[in-house]
């Protein structure tokens, strides 16, 4: 495989039907049209990231909370109970009075170009693969948790079984044999696009050249490889006025 740089993105596919509670379907906005080759990786359509247009957000309410990516990741990578390499935050947002939009934000390691975890690791157990994926050498990791503290996305944890740090690796073991990451393969809505950014003909390159994208916490200057189309700050930005304690 000659992939030099991986890119992971969330794609918008235009609405099939409106499910806005109390909304007029004719008022729906469609900021852009269907993507060329949108179904080349998976069949179906889903919008997993939070939306650029609140009217588009609720369209896929029937698909809300499938969490297939989370489940596939756990099975593929043997992630222990209580820990996640990928998870999907969910919420609601009032668009106009009495009209609620469903929001979803997939979270995971954002595979930085300048990863803080790689910088702070005292033994060099976190490293870049030749093609730019941030990986962990679990045999070298001493389990000091410094990388967990330094990760701006809460994307790392200490595996209670192996006592080493763990996070999303874009399923590197699958990439090495030419397969897509488990979350991409399993996404029933085809919301995740994965590919080679250096290849202008790849779907991910086309999507990124065609649509405006956002990254999480751009102010950190870390250069994430995970891009979002239509990011809404209701979930992506922490509202410090509404913090709560863990239940239980």
């Amino acid at each position, binding site marked *: 495989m000659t992939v030099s740089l991986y890119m992971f993105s969330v794609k918008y596919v235009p609405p099939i039907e409106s499910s806005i509670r109390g909304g007029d379907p004719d008022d729906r906005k469609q900021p852009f049209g269907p993507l060329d080759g949108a179904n080349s990786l998976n069949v179906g359509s889903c919008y997993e990231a939070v939306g650029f247009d609140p009217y588009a957000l609720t369209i896929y309410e029937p698909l809300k*909370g499938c969490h297939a990516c989370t489940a596939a990741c756990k099975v593929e990578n043997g992630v222990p109970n209580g820990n*996640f390499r990928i*998870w*999907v*935050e*969910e*919420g*609601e947002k009032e668009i106009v009075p009495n009209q609620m939009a469903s*929001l979803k934000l997939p*979270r995971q390691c954002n595979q930085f170009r300048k990863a*803080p975890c790689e*910088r*702070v*690791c*005292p*033994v*060099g*157990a976190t490293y870049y693969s030749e093609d730019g994926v941030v990986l962990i050498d679990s045999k*070298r*990791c*001493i*389990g*000091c*948790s*410094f990388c*967990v*503290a*330094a*990760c*701006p*996305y*809460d994307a790392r*944890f*200490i595996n209670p079984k*192996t*006592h*080493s*740090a763990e996070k999303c690796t874009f399923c590197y073991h699958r990439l090495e044999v030419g397969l897509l990451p488990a979350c991409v393969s399993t996404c029933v809505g085809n919301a995740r696009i994965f590919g080679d950014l250096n290849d202008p003909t790849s779907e991910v390159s086309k999507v990124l050249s065609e649509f405006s994208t956002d990254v999480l*916490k751009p102010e*950190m200057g870390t250069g994430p490889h995970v891009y979002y189309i239509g990011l809404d700050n209701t*979930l992506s930005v*922490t*509202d*410090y*006025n*509404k*913090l*709560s*304690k*863990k*239940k239980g």
Partner: protein
Amino acid sequence: MDYVNGMAQLAHSIPFGILVVLDFFLVATSVGLVLISALSLSLGGEKVKGLTKPAAYLALATVIAGPIALLADLGHPLRFLNLFLHFNVRSAMSWGSYILVFYTLAVLIYAWMLTKNPVKAKRWGVISAIFGVALGTYTGMLLVEANSRFLWNSALIPVLFILSGWLSAWALLAVYSHWFAVATRLKGLSLERVFRPTLLSLLIVEIVFVIAQLLVLATNGAQGAAMLGDLFGMHQFTFLWLQLIIGMILPTVMLMVSTKPNTVAFSGVLSLVGVFFLRYNLVTAGQEMPLTGRVFGYAEQEPLMWGAFVLALGVVVLLTIIVPKFMESLAQRISA
């Protein structure tokens, strides 16, 4: 997943626990003790001359106990050698591992030289003090390097760590000179003349720093307000009561109104409590502020961790009593 304000959110456990806090506390106290020892040897008058040796011995004892707590906190304690086999020039912890080793060796030689040749010991005192300042700064820089945690990413942190280490060192000496003077060779030191003014001035400076930190948080918008809410809310017992009232304000008032040796020694105990919980609150509250979602981070309650904490504290007390005696008896045997 937790549901917060109608949103499904994931709560994350905090990575640095009580054992890391104990390590920071002991290492900073050791640095303070070395600075006291080296300064009393080089610049001190008659009043503080008796501090030189005991402070060096206690510095050795505390710096041995600190990394024991840290090792117990590692996921793979037996892989600690990787810290020295694989150096990452950009990692504060990588630098800190080497600084800690060189510091411990320098203090060991310094304590040894004090029993043999006090003139030559001065040189090692300076070397130990230099490594000590580097070590004290490193523990602060370790937190600063995790720059997404806004409570930690401040120039105040390394300064506060060194200052509070200096205070806990004086407090430890005050406690030991009153109750364990024979075992720790701290005989003949005036609690009223030596320890009372020093502890009082350091406590006042620490209070000023903490007030400055709270004022900065108060002006830091929603994030600062949330942090203050955490400190005075979830951390009310450890921050408001143990750190501020019992650990800072009460000993300050006690030292102001009384000069009795018992009062000074007890103020030392309270100051140690205050310094420990200053670190505890900085380390844990800094991690509890969520980086994603809206749920505060939480600490795992593992019985083994608390067992290791109590064990490490026991090792500290044991070493502080054994090390002075061991060093002096060893010196006597060799010279005999």
